[in-house]
């Protein structure tokens, strides 16, 4: 009895140590998020007011003004990028997981992984060549294209991964009902994996929302409202960049505020889309 209880105590110690270590690692993961948020709020919250959200930037030397145009610009760029990135990325992921053969799969996956590693400024150059040059000018279209290209490989990989998690039994059950393949993919496989697909899209969106480099010579930035998507457009990261490297205290303050707004925007979009796509049966049952 004695030996067995001592053995038991030793097992308890091991168990506690292991949970302790995992807990510490979890804290290490969460801590930076808390720190970043805390610092952003401390430095930026003071500068956010109604004017900041609704006014255009003031000329150099005048204090006040806001980033309304950059907030709208970022939303517009995200929308344009999603128009390219979401359909191509999601359907590409469906192809990878549901249709393609092994050899083809290897090449597409390899391609997507390489593209994921391409520096974002290169995407700017690609969009410059493909959109800016033919349209003879910087435009929202070009910025959207650069960000959209970046989204494609990200979304392809996440979509493929979540679709592969859908148990094969569902596909077989649907096939045995004589349902055509495309409907199975759309209405059973993709529907089952919808939350995962949406999460992947949101992560890609969050990732590109903060990109500055691809916008430098595509969207270019604009200190005024953009009335047509073929004109240069402002974006929060560009504005933050410009303000942060400026010598003016007021602009520094606004750069912090811009960063905070950017993070809050991503946060809100995340919560909103998740609420909209919450599976009828994955949450609380009715």
């Amino acid at each position, binding site marked *: 009895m004695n030996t067995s209880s001592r053995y038991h105590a030793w097992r308890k110690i091991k168990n506690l140590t292991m949970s302790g270590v995992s807990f510490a690692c979890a804290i290490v993961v969460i801590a930076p998020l808390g720190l970043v948020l805390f610092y952003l709020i401390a430095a930026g919250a003071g500068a956010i007011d109604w004017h900041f959200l609704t006014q255009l930037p003031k000329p150099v030397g005048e204090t006040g003004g806001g980033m309304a145009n950059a907030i709208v610009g970022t939303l517009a760029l995200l929308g344009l990028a999603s128009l390219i990135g979401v359909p191509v990325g999601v359907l590409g992921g469906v192809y990878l997981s549901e249709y393609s053969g092994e050899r083809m799969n290897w090449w597409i996956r390899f391609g997507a992984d390489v593209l994921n590693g391409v520096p974002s400024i290169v995407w700017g150059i690609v969009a410059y060549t493909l959109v800016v040059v033919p349209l003879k000018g910087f435009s929202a279209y070009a910025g959207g294209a650069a960000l959209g290209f970046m989204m494609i490989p990200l979304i392809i990989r996440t979509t493929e991964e979540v679709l592969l998690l859908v148990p094969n039994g569902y596909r077989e059950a649907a*096939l045995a009902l004589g349902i055509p393949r495309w409907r199975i993919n759309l209405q059973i496989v993709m529907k089952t994996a919808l939350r995962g697909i949406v999460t992947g899209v949101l992560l890609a969106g969050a990732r590109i929302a903060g990109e500055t480099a691809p916008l430098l010579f595509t969207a270019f930035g604009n200190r005024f409202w953009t009335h047509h998507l073929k004109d240069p457009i402002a974006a929060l990261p560009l504005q933050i960049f410009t303000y942060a490297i400026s010598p003016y205290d007021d602009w520094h303050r606004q750069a912090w505020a811009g960063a905070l707004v950017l993070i809050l925007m991503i946060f809100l979009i995340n919560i909103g889309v998740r609420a909209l796509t919450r599976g009828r049966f994955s949450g609380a049952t009715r």
Partner: protein
Amino acid sequence: MNASVAVTQPRREGAALKTKDSQSLPLTRLATPGGKETTPRGTPVSEVAFEVDNLSCWFGQHQAVQDLSLQIPARAVTAIIGPSGCGKSTFLRSLNRMHELVRGSRLSGQIRLFGENIYGPRIDPTLIRRRVGMVFQKSNPFPTMSIRENVTVGLRLNGVRNRVALEERMERALRMAALWEEVKDHLDRPGTSLSGGQQQRLCIARALAVQPDVLLMDEPASALDPIATTKIEELIQELKKDYTIVIVTHNMQQAARCSDYTAFFYMGRLIECDKTDKVFTNPSNKQTEDYVSGRFG
């Protein structure tokens, strides 16, 4: 008995089938040189659902089913028994063209469903699967759908829009699957909220809703408790009045209890196929006898 005996057996079909057969006759002989293998047919019955001739199935280099010929009678329960890896499931999946979905799979031979070659060049496998439903070992109601939607999914995704017709078919399918009384008051709950046995009956209802001719069951009760198993077996007895049922089972008592015909498979070959009571009480083959009496397998 050898392969040549099989093709001389009487058939119910008319001239069209006979000419087809006389054409395939020489091929049949070629496929089994010497006729060493015993491939006995089931006893001739009034109506035949499946006629399987010289079926072989491969996964890559591995041959799972070897030159198998068999008749499956209509509106009766045919059980397929045999040890693991004997090709039972592969055979079953070849009957509704599910075998070919596995990467690297191959198949030769002929399978006719009520006289029609289901591997014919102009046959759409989707349509075959609509006529030959399948129930799987693991119950798999679609998790994003309610009970109601699970039953009607085969109809809806095949283009049936009429709500009244859908409701009617759903109720009939659930009644046939002996599930209606248990779920009629909460049809909008998720299909996955049901118990294991109920889920399996939901899957049977889902398969019945598209009104197939044949129901294939791949160990439908092996993951269920004895009470749920009994329910499924009773259900099979009810369903055989209208449907041809082929059931693969590991459970010999189950085969003895609920089937009219039993086929014993071993190492990808058909060893014996006959009336169930004959297979279990007076099998003509030594291997069958050993298996059903529990001496191997």
